[in-house]
């Protein structure tokens, strides 16, 4: 039963893969904690945080949530909307910069 299922790409995966991903998630979490522990600052801190974050998120989605083995239609339905979120982030970064600029201008220099 399991064997036939496996051939058709629907079934269960070896336990090893889950344990590997599990281990990797632990290691990556430990690394991201170390970023704070060693108090890295500036660009190095931000890029390390983002790298570890995306790696962890990717591993969870791909293997724990099975997206790596999932049908492409579903993967696309799930991932494309993320571009809307990215656009929103870009817009709000610009907006945030503008707000802080006007605040500095009016609060401290009086306009």
């Amino acid at each position, binding site marked *: 039963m*399991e064997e036939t299922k496996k051939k*058709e*790409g*629907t*079934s*269960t*995966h070896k*336990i090893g893969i*889950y*344990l590997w*991903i*599990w281990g990797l*998630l*632990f290691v990556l*979490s430990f690394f*991201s*904690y170390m*970023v*704070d*522990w060693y*108090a890295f600052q500036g660009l190095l*801190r*931000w890029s390390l*945080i*983002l790298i*570890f*974050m995306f790696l*962890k*998120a990717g591993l*969870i*989605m791909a*293997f*724990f*949530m*099975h997206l790596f*083995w999932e*049908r*492409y*239609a*579903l993967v*696309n*339905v*799930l991932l494309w*909307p*993320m571009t809307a*979120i990215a656009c*929103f*982030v870009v817009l*709000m*970064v610009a*907006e*945030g*910069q503008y*707000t*802080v600029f006007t*605040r*500095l201008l009016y*609060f*401290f220099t009086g306009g």
Partner: protein
Amino acid sequence: MSDLKIEGYEFKPGFKGMAKDTGSDQTMFKGVQWGKVMMWIFLLSDTFVFSCFLISYMKGRASTVVDWPNTSEVFSLHVGSVPVPLLLIAIMTFVLITSSGTMALAVKYGYEKNRKMCGWLILATAIGGLTFVGMQAFEWSKLIHEGVRPWDNPFGAKQFGSYFFMITGFHGTHVSIGVIFLFIYAYKTFAGHFDKEKRGWFTTMKGGYVEIEILGLYWHFVDLVWVFIFAFFYLW
């Protein structure tokens, strides 16, 4: 993990499969249990909700002219007399990842129809989730004692409190709901509801171990959101 028995669907990987899915008559995602598709759609909408919170936090933090509280100090825990930065948060992260791992294994054993193993792993996941919520309650009460309020706090920019309570509170609510369902499903698994194909709530369709996978998707999502909260709220 689609069920081949549903509508005689034949799985094809890659773009070919996608074309077959989107071009099919009547239904999309032929062969996928409806509950699973609905869970994915729900998670997608939930992603947008969490994104809105995190983006609003980003915008709030970027536009304040007052210094943001140093999260490493705010969330530090004293071990003896030494303050360890973010200790509790790190432990919470590890606990949640552990529970995500046990959930992934529960799904695997569920598909292998290993009832006992699946049940114990779901129970372990539930206990991990409960531990997480407990630690979060401890963290909240500690911060409230220190004077953090949604409108004020002694550490820096006033917006900090509102974002903290809103974001971690919404995530904590998800974890709590997840824990409740994990306990229910642990019971259902041990009672053999999935082996007997007992129908679930509000449906006439037969139950099965796919329900464990659906529950797993929700639980992994909760862990996924925590990855982002940990990075942006606590570490940044």
